[in-house]
Every structure is written in C-alpha cells, then in structure tokens.
C-alpha cells in the first residue's frame, strides 16, 4: 500500500481530484478451453469505478461475471487487458481489494470475532487491538452480541454478514462482491441490501457488486453495467438516479419499477439466449 502512487493528488487539479477513477478495468479478454471448444468468457470489457461509487455488473448466468470478479480480485491470471487500483496495475490478490464470495466462506472453527479479526491477525496486529477493531465492524454489520458464537450457530444471512465484516476489517479501498446474497431468501436479501446501502454510505466504500438480481442491482447501485450472454460484452451502462439515502421501501416506487423494466428489457434478450444455449447443450449431451 505504501508504494501506491498518488495519482489523485496531482497539483493544480483542485476540486476535480476526486474524479480520478479508483478502479480501472481496461479491455479485459479471457477465453477458456472446454471439451466443446474455446469459450470466450469476457470479451473486451472496460469499466471505471469512481471513489465512493457503487457499481453493479449484472448479466445472465454463464455470461462470465464471476470470471470478471476473479480477474479483478487477482485470483485468475492468464488474461488479456489490465486491472489497476489507484493507478497501480494489479497482479495477483491486492491489499486494496477486498473480496466477498458467493459461497458460505466463514471459518467454522473460529468464533465471529476471530473470523472478523482474521485479516488483522494476518497483518500481525496484537490480539487485544484486533479484537477491538473487529468489534467495530461487527457492530457495523449489526451482529453485536454474537461475537463469541460460532458460524454454525448463526443463520445464513448472519454468516454472510460475518464474511462482509471480515472483508471490511481489512479496510480495502475497493469492495468486490460476487452475488453475496444469492443463497438467501428474497426478504432477507432486501433487508441485507438496506444494511449494505447503509454501510456503504457510512464508510463511503467504493463497491463493485456482481449480481444476476435486478431488484438488488437497482436498490444498491449508482450505475449498472449490463453484460451480454456469451461472449460477455458490455451491453449498456445505466445510471440509477434514485435519491439517496435509499431503503428497500423504494422497491415499490414508480421510478424503481421504471429502472427494473428498462434493465430487464436489455437482460431478457440475453437471458433467453443463455437459456436456449443451455438447453441445446443439454440435449446434445443426452444424445
């Protein structure tokens, strides 16, 4: 982190200093070899995330969203293009990027507080201090009182909040989330969305969310990037001009419905293409 060049602190820039994007994804291309031939997962996608911005990437299943997530998080190499954070090219997992995964990812052998304190423990922070800091993030995700519990004693939504607190505790410049609420029911998802909005506003946390859920994307985002089905390209970028602070109550409003309809219009075509493709592949396999 010490080596990060001060790209945003150029003299004479004045008030527009904050206009430097924090995360730049430049022309990413990734192809996988499969038994049925090469598949282009990500086809020349570029995007920029501004400091404090909440950007969602939405697309049908199989459009390469998760591949993009893994590339941005540095878990996947061997791709074309460039990912940079605050001007620094990312090679491998980066301290400025915090990841939250789709799957259940708490450590079942650690209590909530020790889960959340994990990145601090790795950084070599003494126990008392890291527990102190962990408490702050446990409080932030609203899990006070559960510090000494084990993940097995919590609900799915609570466990996902533990994962979130753990990643936030590493104080990343950018938070990357890959369908973090996919395994949860709709009501829990909406309420957790409120929590995410609240935390994101409070920390002014720059966030990139990968999702296939329309409501979630519109509820949370400043901008939404709609991806096409194979090859995964940028179909459209939609700016969500709903007022902030937002809560899940907005789901019922006309403006909200308008955005959902607009994005669904783009997405429907892609999703049905994906569905057909999937069906024909299954039919072929049966033969």
């Amino acid at each position, binding site marked *: 982190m010490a080596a990060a060049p001060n790209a945003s602190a150029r003299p004479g820039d004045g008030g527009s200093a904050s206009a430097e994007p924090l995360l730049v994804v430049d022309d990413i291309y990734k192809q996988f070899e499969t038994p049925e031939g090469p598949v282009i997962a990500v086809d020349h996608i570029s995007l920029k995330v501004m400091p404090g911005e909440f950007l969602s990437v939405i697309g049908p299943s199989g459009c390469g969203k998760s591949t993009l997530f893994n590339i941005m998080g540095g878990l996947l190499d061997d791709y074309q293009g460039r990912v940079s954070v605050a001007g620094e090219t990312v090679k491998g*997992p980066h301290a400025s990027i*915090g990841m939250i995964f789709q799957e259940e*990812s708490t*450590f079942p*052998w650690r209590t909530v507080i020790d889960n959340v304190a*994990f990145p601090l423990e*790795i950084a070599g922070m003494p126990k008392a201090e890291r527990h102190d800091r962990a408490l702050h993030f446990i409080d932030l995700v609203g899990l006070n009182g559960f510090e000494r519990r084990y993940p097995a004693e919590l609900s799915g939504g609570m466990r996902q909040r533990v994962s979130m607190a753990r990643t936030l505790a590493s104080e990343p410049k950018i938070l990357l989330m890959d369908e973090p609420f996919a395994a949860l029911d709709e009501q829990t998802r909406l309420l957790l969305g409120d929590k995410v909005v609240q935390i994101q506003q409070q920390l002014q946390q720059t966030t990139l969310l990968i999702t296939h859920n329309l409501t979630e994307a519109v509820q949370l985002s400043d901008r939404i990037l709609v991806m096409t089905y194979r090859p995964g390209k940028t179909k459209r970028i939609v700016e969500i001009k709903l007022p902030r602070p937002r809560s899940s109550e907005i789901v019922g409003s006309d403006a909200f419905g308008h955005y959902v309809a607009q994005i669904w219009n783009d997405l429907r075509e892609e999703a049905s293409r994906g569905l057909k493709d999937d069906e024909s592949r299954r039919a072929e396999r049966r033969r």
Partner: protein
Amino acid sequence: MAQTGHLTAAPAAPNIWAAMPLKRRVMWLRIALLVGIVAVWEAVAASGLLFRDVVPSLLTVGRSLFDIVTKPDYKVTLGGSEIWIPEFYRHLWVTTGEVATAMTIGGLAGLVIGLLLGTNPFLSGAFERFLYYLGPTPKIIFFPIMIMWFGVGPGSKVAMGTISCFFPVVLSAAAGVRQVESVLIRVGRSFRLNSWQMVTKIYLPAMRPSIINGVRLGLGVAVIGTLLAETKLSNQGVGFLIINSYSTFDMPRMYALLMLLFMVAIGANALVGRASRG
C-alpha cells in the same frame, strides 16, 4: 385412586421393559451379556474338560492381575535411593515410549506428506497409488528387515509402529486436504496468506476432523505393530510379557496381562476422543 383406578392403573404394571427408556434397556442387556459370559467361563473352568489352565477361573486371573500391578519385584534407582516397583510398569513404560515415538515420527511424516499429496496433483499422481497398495499390507512382514536395520531393541519396535501408523495418517490427511472447501482457500488467497499461513490458518484447522480420524486409526495400528513386534523378538515391553507368560504356560497371568492391555487401549482411545472434542 379408588375412584378412577379401574381406568388408569391396570395397563402400567406388567410391561416395565417396554416403558423403560432405551438407554436403560441397553444397559440391562449389557449386564446380562457380561453375567452370561462370566457364568459360561466359570462353568468351563470348573468342569475340568480342558487341559489345566487353558480356561482358568476368573478368580485366579484376578489374583494374578492384582499381583502384576501391586507386587514389587523390580528394583529402580531414583535419585540415589532404591525403590521396588512391580516390573509390569517398566514394561508398560517401554511399550508406551515406543508407541509414542512411533506416533510422533509416523504421524508427523504422514501429516506432512499427506498435505503435499493433497495440494500437489503432480506428486499425488506419481506416488499416491503406492500408498494405496502398501496401506493394507500387513506390516509385520517388514519386521525382519527392521531388525536388521534397527537391531533387536526398542528401535525395531518403534520402526514397526511408525510404518504401521504412517499409512492411515497420510491417507486421511491427503483426503482431508481435498475436502477443504475451495472458497476457504480463495478467501486465504484474497487476504494474501503465504504458504505457511495457508497451512496453519486454513488447511490444518479445516482438516481437523480427518486428521483426528487418521490419528485415531494410526494409534490403533501403531499399538498393534509395536506389540506384535514385541511378541516376535524382544526382551522387554508388554508384548514380551504376554508371550513370556505364554511360553511358561502361566495362563492366568497371560489373561490378566491381556485384560490390562485392553484397559490401556480403551483409555488411550478415550484420550484421543477427548482431544478431538476439546
């Protein structure tokens, strides 16, 4: 009771067995089985049908057991002063030491190699086959080699215990590595753990159940390997005592030693079980 008795009291009395909780019924069955075995054993012992002490009366066995654990017939010098203890404890100490050493060497080797095999497809592709072939082989066939390499003393017994416990530990560890949820490894990578932290903070804790299972199985076969080796060729250890009683035809003593060994084995297993829960 007098007014309502004809409605409620009647059916409860005859079926005590069915009304009993399952746990209680299991306990009674166990007691019955034990009593049955003792009765048959004593009957055979008293009948005189079998040669002399082949089936000795449990009373004789009990007396022998009492002698083994209480009769001081061995001199040890402790800090300049001489004390007498039952010799059994010396032999138990020897065997325990051998098993503990075997568990340390074989267990650690198994854990490290299991981790390597589980995380490295190249190594597992090259070598894991052999482990599956060698795993079920009775290790006692290596005893002559071990005697040549490590002598007739405790060295060859430790070697037998070591190769016995190595296999279950290495195979459970390798399988355990593969059962670690891949997302936990990705979490570790995203927090930029180095290899050592990956092993100590993610793999080992996530593998705990398989490791404990491996250690449990390993302990069992380490005891078998060590004792078997002691009965073949040695001059100390519990295995030696047992085979010595057999060759001098001291059957009550042999049975008593076997019972003692049984208790020690149960105790050791309980210890591992407690460690796995704690």
